[in-house]
């Protein structure tokens, strides 16, 4: 019987304590983040889709267009497009296309990248109703205001032009030599052709 009244007293006390707690919470500021209006600041280690790294010295990407990311990608969602430009050492990246619909965020591309040109971004607001919105050109994303022209090395350009001229010259000589050569074996070839036709008939 003594337990009976003790239960009532402790029970009521615990109810009052509970009510006090919720009352206190009622007057504290809500911690809700109003999502579409505000968004969470993501932690640096969050692994979103990959992005090209901007070199703080040059303000351009560090990609050497080796294509290791493309080769290492198990789902084949990376396409690296590059071309040779006059006066620039190495190849120049023209488009880095990531098809995020098939990307599994495994990170093989980041691992494979020798010059550390790609990294995980912190972006997580990626909702869309169209599939095409998930085919990103990372180069455009890195430079939304327009991709800057690659730096031209004048010495290299000069050298290249000389080389090109030399190559042209060589080609012209070769052509001339070939033309000379062509004149000689022309007749026997013709004959051979005719003889073949005769044999057939």
């Amino acid at each position, binding site marked *: 019987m003594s337990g009976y009244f003790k239960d009532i007293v402790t029970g009521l006390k615990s109810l009052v304590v509970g009510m006090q707690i*919720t009352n206190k919470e009622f007057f504290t*500021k809500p911690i809700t983040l109003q999502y579409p209006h505000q968004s969470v600041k993501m932690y640096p280690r969050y692994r979103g889709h990959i992005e090209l790294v901007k070199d703080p010295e040059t303000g351009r990407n560090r990609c050497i267009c080796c294509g290791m990311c493309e080769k290492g990608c198990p789902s084949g969602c990376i396409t690296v497009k590059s071309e040779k430009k006059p006066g620039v050492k190495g190849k120049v990246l023209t488009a880095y296309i990531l098809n995020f619909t098939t990307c599994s965020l495994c990170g093989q591309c980041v691992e494979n990248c020798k010059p550390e040109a790609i990294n995980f971004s912190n972006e997580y607001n990626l909702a869309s109703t169209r599939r095409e919105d998930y085919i990103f050109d990372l180069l455009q994303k890195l430079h939304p205001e327009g991709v800057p022209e690659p730096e031209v090395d004048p010495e290299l350009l000069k050298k290249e032009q000389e080389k090109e001229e030399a190559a042209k010259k060589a080609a012209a000589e070769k052509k001339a030599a070939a033309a000379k050569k062509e004149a000689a074996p022309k007749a026997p070839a013709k004959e051979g052709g005719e003889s073949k036709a005769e044999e057939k008939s």
Partner: protein
Amino acid sequence: MNELIRLLAYMLCIAAFLGLNLAYLGWVERKGAGHFQRRTGPKEVGPYGLLQPLADGLKLMSKQLVVPANADKLIYMAAPVLIMVPSVTLFVAIPFGENLVPREFNFGLIMMFAFASVAGLSILIGGWGSGNKYSLIAGTRAVSQNIAYEIPMLLTAINIVMISGSLDLNEIIRQQGSYIWNWNVFRLDKSILMPVSFLVFFICSVAETNRTPFDMGECEGELVAGYHTEYGGMGFGLYMMAEYANLVIGASLITILFLGGWQSPIGILPGPHWFLLKMYFLIWVFVWIRWTFPRTTFWGLLNLSWKYLIPFAMVNLLLTALFIKVI
């Protein structure tokens, strides 16, 4: 003619009062639920989410009424209406002010309890008519709970009747004086257990309105949604509205029986504003309780009724009888 005007005025006022309350108590509850848990509650539709009930109503009304294949169609369709009828009817007897009472019954208290128990019945037939076992379980639970809690509730109500010697709700209020110590909660000269009696009645009201911690009829974890699982659209809307109507009635009843109705606590300006103030405060406490305590188990709920509330109510009844006879 006079009577007709009175009737029309009553219908209009009650419809307006109920409509406003049923819509905005839902908003109050959601807002309260949010802030008690450090969230914000509805805030997108209108300033402070004030147009949310309107949007909810529109959404519910535009839904198709689907009758499940297993359901007993007549009962299924009738149940949500039946649950609203007693709730709306009960407002006829509630004295909001000394002269602001739709109709003065000299048996008002009995009428209140009689109609309140019809609500339990309509919950049961709603569960039964749905043709869904979970709804049926929820309905039977709600009814067994209502029965268990009506006993201590009635026993404490008899206290009040014995003290005031009347079943007329307005007369009960009139007999409680215009100071806080004259209210039935603190009338220790009638029975020293009056505050306990108030507590018993309060707990029973929470249970009667089927609200958390006693919402055995609506436990989502076990019974999908409870007795209104199969209802969509306005059927569901009526159930939700009836819940708030019952809340208003429960709070009004506590106000009338224990907190002096329209009587002023400080002796000045008695009137309907005091009644509404007390009623809304009680409703706020109901909301506060709902978002503080988790649901009890079913046996815990019955234990509380049979082991604690009923003995206390009975002891109080005896004490009151003794006090009235002897002193």
